[in-house]
Structure formats: C-alpha cells, structure tokens
C-alpha cells in the first residue's frame, strides 16, 4: 500500500511542476514590469473591503499604465484573499514576494494580519503600504519601536476612531455617561481605551458605565444592546464595523435606543457599505440626529475637483462609490510611484529614502509622510449621516474637521493600556 502511495506522489509532483507558469520580456528599471502584490479580505462578511482594495488598486494601476507607467515601466498586480487571517496573509506575502516576484505590496484590512506580517516584511525586505489595518501598534510599536522600515501606512489608524470622538463630544456637557458596544478584539479594546483616556483629560466628570463585547461574526446584538442600555447611558461608543455595524444599528433602533440617548458614535460608520445599509433609516430620520460617524476617507470631502473627478472615474469604472479602503489603496499606488520616481530605483532601502519628506495630493487630501513612524498624515472629518440630493446614499454631513496634528499621536509613543 505504502509503495503505491509513493508512486502516486511522484506522479503528482511531476504533474504539479508541469502546470505552466509565466514567461517574461524588459524596461527602464531593469525588469519586465513592476509587480505589486495586493491583499485584502475577499471572503466572509467583510468581503467588500478586500474588494474595494482590489478596485482601488486596479484603477490606479490602469491610470498609471495609461500615462506611461513608472519611469517607462508598466505595472502588474496580483490580488490575493487574506481571508482576514494572519496565517493566510503571511503565506500570501511570502508567495507574492519569493514566488511571484512582487516588488511592493499593498492593502490588508485586518490589524491581526498586519501585526503578523510586520516581521516577515523585514525578512523579505519588501515595503508593504498598509491601507486599512488600523491598530496603532503597527506603527507605534513595529516602526517607531522595533524599527521595521518596510512598514508604511497610508490610512489613518484608530486615532480617527477614538480621539476624534473625544474631541467632538468633550463639548457636549449634557453627555456624561458613556457605554460601549465594542468589537471583542484588539481593535475594539484599543479604541475604547484611547477614547476614554483622551476624553477624561478634557472632561473629568465623565463616567464609563457599561461595556458589552461582541466577538467577530456576532449576528445578534440584542443582548449586548439591552445589557448596556440597562445602565442608562447618555451615549454609546461603537466599534463593530461593516455588516456588523448595520445589524447593530438596526437592532438598536428597534430597541428604541435612539429615543433614549444623546449620541451614538459609530466609528467606521462613514464607510460606503454601512451607509448603503442604513439608507432607509437615514431617509426616515430614524436616528434623530444622534448618530455620528467617521471613516478613513469619505467621498464627499474634501470638496476639491481632484476628489470629485476621482469619484466620477471610480463610479464609471465600478458602478459603485469608492469606500475608504479603495481611496487609500489608490493613493498608495501613487505614493509608491512618487517614491520610485524620486529614488529612481526599485531597491527597498532606496525607495524608503525616497519617501522621506514626501507631501502628496490624493483624492483624500494632502498626505504628509512622517519618518518616525512611517505614517502618512492626513485628516478625515466626522459627521452625521444625512441624505443629500446629490447622492443616492447617505453622506456624512454637519462635518467637524480637525487638523491631523491635533489628533494623531506623536512620538515618543507611550503604550496604550488596553483594558476591557
């Protein structure tokens, strides 16, 4: 029996190697094409974010190639589903770099995947432009702390989710009692801790009266909502995102939450998929003006011709509004282009040098590179979801704009104590 197993094995190995792979031809930087590996969550309930990453990257690639590429070299990309899992993301990264030959990598939704990838990037010596993963630890610990230079983040981290909320609500004296319905993993804990620490500095009178934690893939939040509402909070800080945010808001509505609270902060509520999901409720003003949200880019701000043109092109190409992960990924490719053009090389160390001092205009506004933690600093406003006759889905209106330097944390970084 075992012998036949061995024979089978040999046949199969030969079959595997027989399956064809790519061939090649030549350009100015000495390669057939510049290869970009793209990763995002393309399966599961958060699949839209990976899809948007892919859409943003593809559109950027097409535009760059149409304009002649980078120093005459065409771009080529390969998208892989990281399934929001660290093991898959790391394996894909290795494949993309060592087997497929990626010169750069872009994307990644999950903070867990990003944190696992960090050390591997140092081993593979490839830059990854992170366009969604929001944990502060990626840049504060791995870049500023451990010096992994291959990490570059283009999207705003949880400073957006946590600190902006504190800045907005510190000026609401009637809101004293806060509760959270939080995502039961690091993103949720860190955001809540950061929010509490920041708010307490401005408002020592504030109390944190209840918490409920919902694990990934919770479908029914009614026990969490009712547990939290039993403590009669004035406002709720909510971190579940994507489909979970939509469900949570619906289930909160039918429990009459929005008749009882002054405010509900839905951290990533400004994301296109969430706005689409709550269109009916916003149209009927069910949230009574209490719902606040932000994102890592919103399509109606800044009101610049460049942003408007980007939206138009995106809608034409994909028949949908760009989500924040699409804009950040799109911008990441242009950032990469600028860095490669400045350094005139694909060598990782030289491109990192080329990033230093970079200021670049993207659809989302002006992004400025900060060398200490490899963050691209830019700002995104927060607001209330409202209907606007110019758009078929809600947009964030009543915008509060803060300067990025007022809510990005600065080095030297002290660790955020994460308590539940």
């Amino acid at each position, binding site marked *: 029996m075992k012998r036949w197993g061995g024979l089978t094995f040999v046949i199969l190995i030969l079959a595997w190697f027989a399956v064809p792979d790519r061939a090649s031809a030549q350009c100015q930087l000495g390669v057939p094409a510049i290869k970009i590996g793209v990763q995002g969550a393309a399966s599961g309930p958060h699949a839209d974010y990976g899809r948007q990453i892919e859409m943003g990257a593809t559109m950027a690639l097409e535009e760059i190639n149409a304009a002649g590429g980078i120093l005459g070299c065409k771009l080529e990309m390969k998208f892989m589903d990281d399934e929001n899992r660290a093991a898959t993301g790391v394996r894909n990264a290795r494949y993309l770099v060592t087997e497929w030959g990626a010169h750069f990598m872009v994307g990644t939704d999950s903070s867990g995947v990003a944190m696992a990838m960090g050390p591997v990037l140092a081993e593979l010596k490839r830059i990854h432009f992170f366009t969604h993963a929001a944990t502060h630890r990626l840049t504060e610990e791995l870049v500023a702390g451990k010096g992994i230079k291959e990490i570059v983040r283009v999207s705003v981290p949880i400073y957006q989710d946590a600190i902006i909320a504190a800045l907005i609500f510190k000026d609401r004296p009637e809101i004293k009692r806060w509760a959270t319905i939080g995502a039961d993993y690091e993103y949720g804990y860190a955001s809540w801790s950061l929010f509490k620490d920041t708010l307490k500095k401005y408002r020592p009178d504030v109390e944190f009266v209840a918490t409920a934690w919902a694990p990934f893939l919770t*479908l029914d939040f009614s*026990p969490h909502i009712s547990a939290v509402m039993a403590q009669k909070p004035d406002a709720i800080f909510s971190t579940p995102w994507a*489909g979970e945010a939509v469900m949570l808001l619906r289930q909160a509505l*039918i429990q009459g939450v929005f008749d009882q609270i002054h405010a509900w902060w839905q951290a990533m509520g400004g994301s296109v998929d969430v706005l689409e999901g709550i269109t009916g409720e916003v149209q009927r003003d069910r949230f009574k003006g209490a719902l606040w949200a932000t994102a890592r880019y919103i399509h109606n701000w800044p009101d610049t011709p460049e942003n408007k043109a980007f939206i138009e092109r995106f809608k034409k190409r994909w028949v949908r509004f760009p989500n924040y992960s699409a804009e950040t990924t799109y911008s990441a490719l242009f950032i990469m282009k600028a860095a490669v053009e400045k350094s005139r090389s694909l060598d990782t160390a030289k491109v990192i040098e080329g990033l230093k001092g970079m200021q670049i205009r993207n659809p989302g506004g002006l992004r400025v590179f900060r060398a200490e933690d490899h963050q691209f600093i830019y700002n995104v406003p927060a607001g209330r979801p409202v209907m606007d006759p110019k758009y078929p889905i809600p947009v964030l209106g009543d915008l509060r704009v803060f300067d990025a330097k007022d809510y990005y944390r600065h080095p030297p970084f002290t660790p955020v104590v994460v308590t*539940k």
Partner: protein
Amino acid sequence: MDNIAFQGLIGLSLAMYLWLLSAGLTIIFGVLGVLNFAHGSLYMVGAYLAFTFYGLLGLPFWVAVGLSLLGVGLLGIIMERGFLSRLYGIDEAYQLLLTFGFILILDDAVKIIWGGVFKIPPIPEFLDGAWSLLGRPFPVYNTFLIGIGLVVAVLLWFLFERTWWGRTVRATASDREMANAIGVNVPRIFTGVFALGAMLAALGGALGTPVRVVAPGIGAAMIIQAFIITVIGGLGNLKGAFVGSLIVGILSAYGTLFFPVFELFFIFVIMAVVLLIRPQGLFTR
C-alpha cells in the same frame, strides 16, 4: 430586578430563533441518523432567497418567506435524494463528510450568485418599533420571534403526535426495518423529513433578514450553537432541542450581562459535560 427579567426576555427571543435552526437539525438526526453539517448552509440559502424575493423583487414579506421555504425544501430534496441516500448503510462518517462537502459548495455558490458583499433588506413595517415592557422598549420583532418559535413548536408537536405522517415518521425513526416490513416507503419518508428539516432552517434564515445581514459565512456562525443545543437536548429529541434552545439562548443573554469573558468557553463545557454524562441528552424520551 426588572433589568434582569428584561435581559431574560431578550434571551428568550434569541432562544426561539435558535430553536428554529435546531429543530430541523435534530429531526434529521432522529430519523435519518445523519448529523447534517450543512444545516447552517441551508439556513444561509434561506436567508439569501428571502432577501432576493423581499428585498430585491419587492414581494410581500410572507410571500418571500414562503418562496424561500419552497426553494430550500427543493434543495434539500436534491441533496438527500441525489447524494445522501447513496451513502445509507455505509459508515456514517462518510455521510458527515458529504454534508461537509456541501458546506464548501454552498458557501462559494452564494458568493458566485449574489456576490461577496453583505445584503440586508428594509425592515418590514409590521415588525418595526417597540412596546413598553418592564419600563423599557421591547422590540416588536423580538416578540414576533418568540411567537413564531412557540407556534412552530406547537405545529411540530401536532405534526408528530397527531398526524398519520408524523406517526409514520416516528415509527421509521425508532425501527427502520420494521417500518419497511409493514409497508412504509422508507426512502420517501427520509426525503420528506430532510426537506422538512431544511425548510425549518430556511425559516430561520428568512425570518432573520429584517435585522441580520445576509452574507457568506453566516451559516457557519450559527451551526455551532445549533450543535450545542441538539447535544444538550439529546440528538433526535425534539422536546430536548426546545429546552436546549431555551438554555443556550437565555444563558448567552445573561452571559453578555454578567460574565462576558467566559461565555464562549462555558457553553462548550456544558456541551462536553452533557455528552460525557448523558449522551442521550438531558431529556430522555
């Protein structure tokens, strides 16, 4: 305290929802002897169909639910007749593996047909809003779930205790060969029971759409809880599944209120303890 009672009622609505899923699972096991791993996928397809008929095509909610039941019932018939029935009489491990294969197929199939983005229809008007209970707003929707769960329980009891078909099924479940000997068309009974179980799963899926998103993977999220409930109640024991749903639903609601850290772990401990001490379930027939 009122808040504790309120949380218990929320837990009750959770329990009734879980009951819909567990009833089908336990019936299928009780009669066919098959643990249908793909039950969660049938739930998911039910949700997708209901969303399509109600959310996309604009049909009335009840019509959409009915069509979704028919659709998944048909799917169940195909699964049982076309595939599962070929494995009766062979080691049941293969039946488990077959249903596992179906999970993989159905999960990708819904992605291919409907795309990977989550879907949610508007909430039907008659299910919106809340009424005052114990001084707090208790949703109409959750009340509705409690009602439906009880109605389904009564209907199933009636079906199995008082109708000819139900009695035949029970006879087949307790002794297959004997039933065959007295002229029962056992294969047809099996198909019918599998379809019934599938439709119950679809009912759960369809009724969830007003407040839950429809997305790939929602079946897998539910199936574990359904397993736990059927184990606690006794595999094949319908009354046990009902009580098991109450236990799991209400306990998890209280878990969120009082000891959130341990919730996940303890529910599996209960499952393991029941399997160890009384594998026939806490409620023997």
